């Protein structure tokens, strides 16, 4: 049943991704009234699908890459809704909603078969660990996207070319970028902390000598440094994009480091 709800959610994301184009690019309120409710409904169905999946999983947690992507898609859709609620702009949806649709597409129609057994008591915490870290990644993606939009709009204003009316104002994109990072910090901290506690309880201290884990903590430090620099120096525009991109690639490296890790590889053959 969870698969059916996921398919409905993906379909709704698809509708929202199409409707947001005229809504953002041509400022058509009628299309905005389709895109926003479709996203809300998509998120709700996605939640239901997730809850049913977790309920059915009991002590086995799906760990296929696509399942994780689907969860990331849900968080990005939520991020889009939060940005809309706070800043009344649908511009970011032009990029975020297609990503939500694509991230949900594979698990909805070709669900992965891989799952990992965990002690029943840890299932909830592990899910929280994954969800919090994915929320931190989503915040970083959002921040990077907002910084890129800032850069595009800034360039057009500097070159005196006609501005893109669908892009938010510079100060708005800057605020989105800053606040997304601030939101991501506690998520990443809590996610790493929960992961560490579970690891301590299950694997022991040797877990913290794993390259993947060391890289994850390095990422956390860089993330904090980035927020500090952005806030202290009021970093905006090109330099902010460079910094966000650097941290984003670091995050990708940490993600990819699963392949090097001896203890953080749940889907290993």
């Amino acid at each position, binding site marked *: 049943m969870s698969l059916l709800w996921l398919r409905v959610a993906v379909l709704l994301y698809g509708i929202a991704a199409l409707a947001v184009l005229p809504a953002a690019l041509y400022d*058509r309120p009628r299309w905005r009234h389709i895109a926003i409710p479709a996203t809300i409904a998509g998120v709700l169905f996605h939640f239901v699908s997730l809850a049913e999946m977790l309920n059915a999983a009991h002590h086995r947690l799906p760990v296929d890459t696509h399942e994780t992507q689907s969860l990331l898609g849900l968080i990005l859709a939520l991020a889009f809704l939060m940005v809309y609620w706070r800043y009344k702009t649908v511009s970011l949806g032009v990029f975020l909603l297609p990503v939500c649709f694509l991230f949900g597409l594979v698990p909805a129609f070709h669900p992965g078969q891989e799952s990992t057994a965990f002690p029943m008591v840890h299932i909830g915490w592990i899910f929280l660990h994954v969800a919090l870290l994915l929320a931190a990644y989503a915040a970083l993606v959002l921040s990077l996207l907002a910084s890129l939009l800032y850069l595009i709009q800034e360039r057009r204003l500097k070159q005196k070319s006609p501005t893109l009316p669908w892009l*938010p104002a*510079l100060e708005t994109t800057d605020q989105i970028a800053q606040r997304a990072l601030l939101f991501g910090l506690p998520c990443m901290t809590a996610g790493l902390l929960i992961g560490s506690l579970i690891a301590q309880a299950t694997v022991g201290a040797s877990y913290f000598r794993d390259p993947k884990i060391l890289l994850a903590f390095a990422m956390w430090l860089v993330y904090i440094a980035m927020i500090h620099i952005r806030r202290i120096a009021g970093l905006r525009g090109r330099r902010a994009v460079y910094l966000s991109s650097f941290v984003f690639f670091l995050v990708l490296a940490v993600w990819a480091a699963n392949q090097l890790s001896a203890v953080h590889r749940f889907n290993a053959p």
Partner: protein
Amino acid sequence: MNQSKLQSRIQSRLQSTPAAGHVRLVLLGINHNTAPIEVRERLAIPSTRLADATRTLLHQPGIREGLILSTCNRVELLTLQEDAGEASSIQPQTKADLLRFLHEYFAVPPIDIQPHLYEFREREAVRHLFRVASSLDSMVVGEPQILGQVKESYTIAREVGAVSTHLESLLQRTFTVAKKIRSETQIGSSSVSIASVAVDLARKIFGSLQGKTVLLVGAGKMSELAARHLIEHGASSILVSNRTQSRAEKLAAVFASPTVHTEAIPFEALYEQTPRADIVITSTGAPQKIFGRSHGQHFLQRRRNRPMFFIDIAVPRDVDPRMNKVEGCFVYDIDDLQQAAAANLADRSREAAAAETIVSREVDKYHERLQSRDAVPAIKVLQQQAEAIRETELARSQSKLAGLTPQQREAVESLTRSLTAKLLHPQLTALRESTRSKNTE
């Protein structure tokens, strides 16, 4: 009732209907394209006198409904007149009546008005009204005020009883069309004046202008206008700096209000105080640049890279254009603003073409609906007659249907209703078609 009686009843209903042939929509007016300001100002009606003028118009012979639209660019009389006879003979008379009204009300000789007058009838009057309300006939195409002015005229005309059935439905349709054009085209979305372009750019940088600080350097008329626009959009603090301190104080006082903080800054403290401003408008007559690139870097450093927008409307320029290269500084001179305004105007013209298509479509729809509406009384007679026959026949078979359950009775009711509706359908369609073709002829 037999067939011939029914036919004569329908015929009489059709004849008594106030069809398009019995009332005539006439629009007479002058606007910025046909009349110079000297003529327009003689005919302009202040809003305080609009009710009285509309009442006077309504008392003219043959006028059933009427509305007067009076703005700085146009004076138009929209009237629904009784059609007393053949079209060819009535046309000059109608115009003469309205001209007489203008002459009597404004004391302007007809000879002074006549060369500038335009006249639209029926379909063309509807088209013109749609175009006016949608701002397609305005001096600045896409300006938003005209719709409000049409609505105000409508409210006044309604209050004095000059608008009822026909004009009511026409004006409601007009407002819908104007709204549709606003939402489906970008006709009013771009700014076409220097001051509003400056506001638009400021909003592209800062988003909301609520709480923003504007610094005026120099005291020119255009900078004052731009500052006013910025205040209208939320700027809450105005700083003024001028070489002559008394002029700065005088200008600051002009903007003072309970919601706007104003301050005159001594010219010597200009560089010290400039970082406080988010938007700087310069319009001095200084032969050299007042702000250079290094000033921009210094200001941004003090503002922790919060952006600054320099609007330089001075000639020669007050701000070094190289300051635009400083990250976070946006410098626009008068040419940049004019180019943006011209580009927006071109955009509006493109959107106007799309709006004209919508107007044409809506005129057709309105006309079609109007023509079908004339058949409504006859259709009602036919439907009532059929319903009476159905009920009589059912009553006659009452004794035979007595043994039916409530569900079976409901089924018989619905069957007979459906039969009469289906039998009537071709007649009703033919009736609508015939009314439509009669009106077209």
